[in-house]
C-alpha cells in the first residue's frame, strides 16, 4: 500500500506554513522528515492526523483519501504527539485502559507492543513517577492500541536516554517489517538509521535528500 501526501497546504492567518508538501512512502518503509524549528513539521502532522484542517491537497493510503474519510483515517492512522498523551495522576494501566480492552491489554502484554516496549515492568506505576523514556514508550503504546497501518511520530526520541531510543527504534523496525508505514519527524541520528527515505521541510515544501552525517549538519546552518 502506498502512502501519498499530495500538495498539502496550510496557513495560519497570513502566514503560509505549508505551501505544497509532496511526500510518498511505500508500505514497510519509514520516512524521516527533518527541518528547523518552525519549519512546519508539527503542522504537517497535525493536518495529517486531523487535528488541524488542511487548506488544499490530499492524503492517500492505497489510493483512498484519508482526508475524505475520518473513519478510515482513525482506523488506519496512529499518531504519537510530541508531549505524552497521558494522565499524570493515573497508572500506566489506567492510561492504557482508555485505548485497550481488558483482553487486548493482556494479549499485548503477552506478545504485543506492550511487551516489546517493556511497559509491563511499570504497569502499576503512576505516570508522574515515570522517566521520560517510560512515558514515551507508554505514549506509543496508547497511540498504536488500535493496530494502525500508518504511524506518525513527532520527535519520539526527544530528550530520551540511549536505552529508550534503542527500544523505540527496535519497535519501529518491527512495525516496518510487519508492513506498516512510519512517518517520523526527528533530529536524532539513531532514528535516521531506520529511515528508508528522508525529506527536508524548508519554505513550506518537502525536498527529498540522501542522509549522511556531514550533509545533515550542513542543512541546519
Amino acid at each position, binding site marked *: 500500500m502506498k502512502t501519498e501526501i499530495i500538495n498539502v497546504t496550510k496557513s495560519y492567518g497570513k502566514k503560509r506554513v505549508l505551501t505544497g508538501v509532496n511526500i510518498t512512502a511505500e508500505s514497510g518503509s519509514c520516512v524521516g522528515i527533518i527541518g528547523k524549528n518552525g519549519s512546519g513539521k508539527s503542522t504537517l502532522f497535525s493536518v495529517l492526523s486531523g487535528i488541524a484542517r488542511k487548506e488544499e491537497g490530499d492524503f492517500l493510503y492505497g489510493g483512498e483519501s484519508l482526508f475524505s474519510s475520518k473513519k478510515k483515517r482513525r482506523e488506519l492512522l496512529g499518531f504519537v504527539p510530541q508531549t505524552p498523551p497521558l494522565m499524570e495522576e*493515573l497508572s500506566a494501566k489506567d492510561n492504557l485502559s482508555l485505548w485497550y480492552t481488558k483482553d487486548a491489554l493482556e494479549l499485548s502484554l503477552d506478545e504485543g507492543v506492550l511487551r516489546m516496549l517493556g511497559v509491563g515492568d511499570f504497569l502499576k506505576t503512576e505516570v508522574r513517577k515515570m522517566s521520560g523514556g517510560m512515558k514515551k514508550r507508554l505514549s506509543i503504546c496508547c497511540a498504536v492500541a488500535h493496530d494502525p497501518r500508518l504511524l506518525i511520530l513527532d520527535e519520539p526520541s526527544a530528550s530520551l536516554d540511549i536505552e529508550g531510543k534503542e527500544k523505540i527504534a527496535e519497535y519501529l523496525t518491527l512495525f516496518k517489517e510487519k508492513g506498516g508505514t512510519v512517518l517520523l519527524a526527528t533530529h536524532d541520528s539513531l532514528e535516521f538509521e531506520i529511515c528508508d527515505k528522508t525529506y527536508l521541510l524548508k519554505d513550506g515544501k518537502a525536498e527529498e535528500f540522501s542522509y549522511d552525517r556531514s550533509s545533515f549538519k550542513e542543512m541546519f546552518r
Partner: protein
Amino acid sequence: MSYLKLCLKRASKASVPLIVITLILLSAASLLLFTYLSRDKEVKRIGVVGNTEDTYIDIALTLLSENESFEITPLSRDEAESLLKSGDIQGYAEIPEGFVSSAMKGKNIPFTYIALKKPSSLYHVITKETVSSVAVLLNESQNAVYGMRQYLKDNAMKSQLGEKSEEMSFKYVSAILQRKNLFDVKTVGIADSVSTVEYYFVSIIIVFALLLGASASPFMIKSHAGLPVLLKSRGISPLKQVLCELFAFFSVIYAIVFSLLFVVSFVLDASLFIYALKLIPVIFTLTALQFMIYETSDALVSGTLFQFFASLTFAFISGCFYPSFLFPRLLRDMAGVLPVGSAFSLGRSLLSGGAGFYDVTLLLLWCVILTALSVIIRKIRIVRWGI
C-alpha cells in the same frame, strides 16, 4: 474504559488533597461563622451625649434600653469619644440643646449620630441605619404630639393642654419604641427574603465551592496537551472531552459540598438534603466558570493565582462578603447577571423557597455559555498544541 470513567477516576484521586484543603477551609469557615453568629448576638452599645434628663428623652432612652439589641448609655462627650475610639461603643448620638422643646414648637433640630469615619463592618451600617430610623420615628411622634397640642388650642381646650399633651407624648413614644424587633426589621432586606444568617450561609457555600475549585488547579491546568491532541486524532471531539472533564470536575466539587452540607445538617439539626440536591445547578455553574478559566491557563503558578483572584473577585462583587446593596447600583446590577452573582441569587432563592423562572433560566444559560466557551477554547488550543 471510557474517557468519562477515566476522568472520574482521576478526579477521585484529586479528591484526596482536595479533602485536606476542605478540612482547612472548613475550619476557617466554621471559625468565621462562629465569630459572626456570636457577634450577631452581641448587644450593641450606643452612647448618648447631651441633655438626657429631659422627660421625653428619658422615656425614649428607657424604652429603647428595653430592646435586647441595644444598650443605651448616657455619656459625656469626652467619654463617648474615648469609648468610640476604643471600640467599646458602636457610636453615639449627640442630642442638641432644645431638641425636645423645638420639636414641640414644630421645628426640627436634628440630633447627630457619630460613628468612626469608615464603617468597619456590617454591624456598623446596621446600627447606623437603626439609629437613623429611631430618629425618624421620634420625630414623627413629636410631630404628632405637636399636632395634638395645636388641635386642643384650636378647639378651646387649652385647659387640658398640659395633661393631654403629656399623655399623648407618653402614648406615642411608648407605642413606637416598645418594639422588641426593631433591629430585625432593619436586617431583613439584606437580599431577597432571607435572613442575615441564611444570606451568609449561602455565601459561605458559594465561596467554599469556589475555593475548592481553585484548589484543584494542579489537576486542572494543562501544562502539556498530548492527551487532548491524541483524543482528537482518535475521534474524541473537544466537546466530548470538555463534557467528560467538566462532569468529573463538577462531581468531585459537588460531592465535597454535599458532604459538607450533610455534616452541617447534623450540627444545626436542620434538614439540608433537599437543599443540597437543589444546589446542583448552582455548583455546576460555578464549576463551569472555573473550568472555563482553567482552559485559558497553561502555567501552574499564574493559572492558580488567576483562578483564585477571579474566583474571589466574582464572589466579592456578587455580595458574598458584603451585602451587594452596599455597592454602587451599576456594579450591583452587573454582578446580579454574572455567573457567580446569579448562582448566589438562586442559592438564596432556593433557601427561601422562592426560586423563580428567571433565576433558573439565567443559570442554565450561563451553564451553556460557559461550556460552549470552554469547547471553543479547547478547539483553539488543540490546534495550537498540535503545531
